[in-house]
């Protein structure tokens, strides 16, 4: 697998991703959806809605930026993984669903390079989503007057891009499963599995050192997760990225 091959694969995958609008529409859905949900929950909590207050748990009543960011992180820890997992399942699974995988054989650009190209574009996209969501939440916060009432708390916004990128990292197994399963649905099923494991463990307050759980737990209770535990999260994309490249190198059209 040559560096030139990976460069070509990244360029080709970026072109497909931009033209398809799957990633653009997923970005809009996620960013706008999380923004609207967070704003709605904040307003409902302010009006004393008991159901919303119960859902927010310890976040209920936290004022200013910390409260807003806390709500955004809670939603993003689940919705972000779902959005990233579905997008990555599409990225890999569509080659099988559309039959285009046959055209990716017998090329000077190797199939592992193509798989890595897909992952590079996916991770670059996740950074763009992180920036967009942080921007939208900042706008919501300033619109609610936090700029004046909680100027010192604005630093809490920095947690958003961290969680968004961590959510993208733990969704990488969806690409491997979509490859092994030869389609989108196995990847989406894997994504749902990751979300269930992460959310159930986080609510039970266990698994700070489990890479799939640490981001969701950090979103709910940042003090429960040491910084070193978050640094373990990249082992997921490293391991499953390598598995992806291997699966594509050994791929056969035998099904």
């Amino acid at each position, binding site marked *: 697998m*040559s560096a030139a*091959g990976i460069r*070509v694969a990244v*360029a*080709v995958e970026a*072109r*497909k991703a931009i*033209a*398809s*609008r799957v990633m653009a529409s997923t970005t809009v859905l996620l960013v706008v959806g999380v923004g609207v949900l967070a704003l709605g929950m904040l307003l409902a909590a302010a009006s004393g809605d008991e159901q919303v207050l119960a859902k927010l748990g310890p976040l209920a009543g936290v004022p200013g930026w910390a409260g807003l960011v806390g709500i955004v992180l809670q939603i993003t820890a689940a919705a972000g993984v779902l959005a990233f997992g579905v997008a990555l399942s599409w990225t890999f699974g569509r080659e099988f669903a*559309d*039959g*285009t995988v*046959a*055209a*990716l*054989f*017998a*090329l*000077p*650009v*190797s199939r592992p390079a193509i798989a890595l190209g897909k992952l590079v574009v996916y991770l670059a996209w996740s950074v763009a989503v992180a920036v967009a969501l942080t921007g939208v939440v900042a706008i919501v916060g300033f619109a609610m007057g936090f700029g004046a009432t909680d100027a010192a708390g604005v630093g809490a916004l920095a947690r958003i891009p961290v969680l968004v990128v961590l959510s993208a990292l733990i969704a990488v197994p969806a690409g491997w499963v979509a490859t092994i399963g030869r389609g989108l649905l196995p990847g989406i099923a894997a994504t749902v599995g990751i979300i269930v494991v992460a959310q159930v463990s986080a609510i039970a307050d266990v698994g700070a050192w489990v890479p799939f759980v640490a981001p969701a737990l950090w979103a709910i209770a940042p003090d429960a997760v040491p910084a070193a535990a978050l640094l373990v999260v990249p082992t997921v994309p490293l391991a499953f990225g390598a598995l992806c490249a291997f699966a594509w190198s050994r791929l*056969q*059209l*035998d099904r």
Partner: protein
Amino acid sequence: MSAAPRFEARGLARTFRGGAGVHGIDLDVAAGEIHALVGLNGAGKTTLMRLLLGMLRPDAGAVRVCGVDVNRADAATWARVGQLVEHPLAYAELTGRANLEVAARLHGLGRAQLAAAVDRAVEEFDLGRYADVRASRLSLGNRQRVGLAGALLHEPDAIVLDEPTNGLDPAGVIVLRESLLRRAAAGAGILVSSHHLDEVARVADRITVVNDGRIIGTLDPGGFDLERAFFALVHGDDERRRAAA
């Protein structure tokens, strides 16, 4: 340009559950030759082509592509290959031209050669009207044209096309025929499968008949009544196998 056989298969076998597959095939595709594979559905033509291109690993036997073991083929070897087996490289979200540009990059063409190669392909396959149309809006036949143009735009020496006339209109069939004849004349070795015996007779230098995963004979491209000769071979083979069972 070296005159090594473009494809060589020796003792090639791959059996799927249920017994289908190919069972010991020897096959050569020489430089400058159009070699046609004909056979009924399920005879093993596509499996054979997939084995030649590394899409399947054989249970036994070996494949050489442009003189190189298919398992050791590097980027330089694959840059000499063009193929369309089953689905064309035509991403629904990309226009005809964008699909050709993607194909050109994947086939190893640099930015400097890309625009000219894509322009030539658009002209050769008469895709001008569809160059700026998304593939999702193209007819099956025009998607096939995009796929064929993308598979051939880097002027490969070794070409494998599985049922390339699928979906093509009569004008597209002629465009493809001329394209293959021109490339063979320039030294490419071409393996093509087809159900259209008349079309095969027009372009092929050799016609090999495949049945039940084995090569059972050849047809003379200049011969009279190819259809009768084809069925005589296939039915004769079926009867021999039944008698032996």
